[in-house]
């Protein structure tokens, strides 16, 4: 009886500590490496020049995982986007990341332009067209303090000791930079960043222009599928990758 009790306690301690470990991200960096090309093209041409410049750059297929249901009331969702193709290049003091993934539904709209004038001075207001649609989106997460050999933050939006920055692109609403130090702490910084997106033949291709990051920096990716009502932590995510 005693031994059984001890065993239960020991295994719970182990389970708990491994959970805390995973939560706090105290694990040493073991993510997979991500090749980074050094491009002679300018950052601008990589961002806006279309596919030819990117075709020269090595691609890595990164597996995506579906977050488990976060809330009791969540509708179940299947793994419709199993992977994202990542190309990375340094150019002109910037790090450019191209994410491409297959998504048969393009969940994006052009929102009506809101005039500069006060709504009460206008006959017509811009109206909500739909309240139940969600849009395709993607994000690149990096540690706020990066560098070779540093501990990777928790994958769940960082942790108290290891805050993260998230470069978020939304097919309808554009880009924004966010900061977080754990689940539920995401905060908009009010800043945006340059990005370029195309949707062709059932495939999204989004180029993020990030500040240059040193080799050894961990980066993680996320994809939201609007038609699966993705938003918040309801999404696809990769494990940490390490820039070469």
């Amino acid at each position: 009886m005693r031994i059984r009790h001890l065993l239960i306690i020991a295994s719970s301690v182990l389970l708990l500590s491994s959970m805390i470990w995973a939560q706090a991200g105290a694990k040493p960096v073991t993510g997979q490496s991500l090749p980074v090309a050094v491009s002679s093209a300018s950052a601008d041409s990589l961002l806006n020049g279309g596919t030819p410049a990117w075709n020269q750059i090595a691609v890595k297929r990164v597996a995506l995982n579906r977050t488990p249901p976060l809330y009791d009331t969540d509708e179940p969702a299947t793994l419709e986007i199993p992977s994202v193709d990542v190309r990375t290049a340094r150019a002109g003091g910037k790090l450019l990341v191209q994410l491409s993934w297959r998504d048969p539904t393009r969940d994006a709209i052009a929102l009506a332009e809101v005039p500069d004038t006060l709504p009460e001075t206008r006959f017509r207001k811009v109206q909500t067209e739909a309240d139940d649609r969600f849009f395709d989106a993607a994000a690149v997460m990096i540690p706020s303090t990066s560098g070779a050999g540093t501990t990777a933050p928790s994958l769940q939006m960082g942790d108290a000791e290891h805050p993260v920055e998230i470069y978020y692109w939304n097919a309808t609403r554009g880009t924004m930079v966010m900061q977080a130090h754990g689940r539920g702490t995401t905060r908009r910084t009010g800043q945006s960043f340059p990005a370029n997106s195309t949707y062709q033949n059932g495939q999204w291709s989004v180029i993020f222009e990030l500040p240059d990051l040193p080799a050894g920096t961990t980066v993680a990716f996320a994809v939201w599928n609007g038609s699966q009502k993705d938003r918040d932590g309801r999404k696809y995510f990769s494990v940490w990758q390490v820039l070469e």
Partner: protein
Amino acid sequence: MSRHQYAMVMDLNKCLGCQTCTIACKKLWTDRDGTGYMYWNNVETRPGLGYPRQWDRIGGGWKDGSLQPSPLPTMDDYGHAWEYNYEQRLYEGKKQPVMPSPEPKSGANWDEDVGGMNEDENYFFYLPRICNHCTYPACLEACPRKAIYKREEDGIVVIDQDRCQGYRYCIKACPYKKIYFNEVTGKSEKCIFCYPRLEKGEVNACAAQCPGRLRFVGLLDDPESPVHKLVLVHKIALPLFPEKGTEPNVFYIPPFNPPKRENYGRSIQDDPRVPLDYLIYLFGPEVKDVIVRLEAELRKTQEGGRSEALQLLIGRDAETRFHVRPQLVQIQL
């Protein structure tokens, strides 16, 4: 639980369905971009579809301590907000008639006065609705952003527009479907119980404008307030759908209509104009006790006595109906 709790009581026997409250609210709070379809205050015909339609049947709220699932209502359930071509008619000299666009196909109180049938007779009444500023708000629990909070000083439930990311879990969780998504701002909005007015000592716009004088406002925990008296002393006001588990702080005096025939001296329970089952559906089984209490009060006055409860329900002046205590709700810094 908040330190104090503002509450509202609405006497359904006095509601005319004139929508003055709806317009008072709309002009004050939802006359902005993206808010055309939003009615923080709406008045719907009961029995009826409600706004958004079938909101009372699609889910949300609590059961055994867990949030209950619900789909998001669609714009077809709300009805797309329409605009009129006033510019062309009034300023551009076009002769075309003033017409709405897009073509109205549904909207708030679309099924106005249709009601239901009780044996061979039609019946209906109006149900004005605002956010219930619940004691246990399902919306607050559902928000992963912690953007929704219940004000400590007065129990009013509000959405922090800076924290809201427009995820809409709150809309699903609210069993009364009283939160609306603004696609222009990408954030959700709801009734704020006119807290900026209350803080200045002014009552809610919907209550101030009500020609039927059917709204009573005050702190539930203030013994001097009419809501305290109606809900806790006379015990004649009930929340809507108590089984949803959120403990609303908006209460209703159920329709205390006369019997269908030979109304004097008969109980409506003998010959109800509004089927009792329907009132139980809306207000729970306690509605029977409330009707018994209301009938007792009525009998008191019919026998020449005086009923404090009925005198209060008449609500002759604003001092009787509203007990706003700005000094209680000022935030202590």
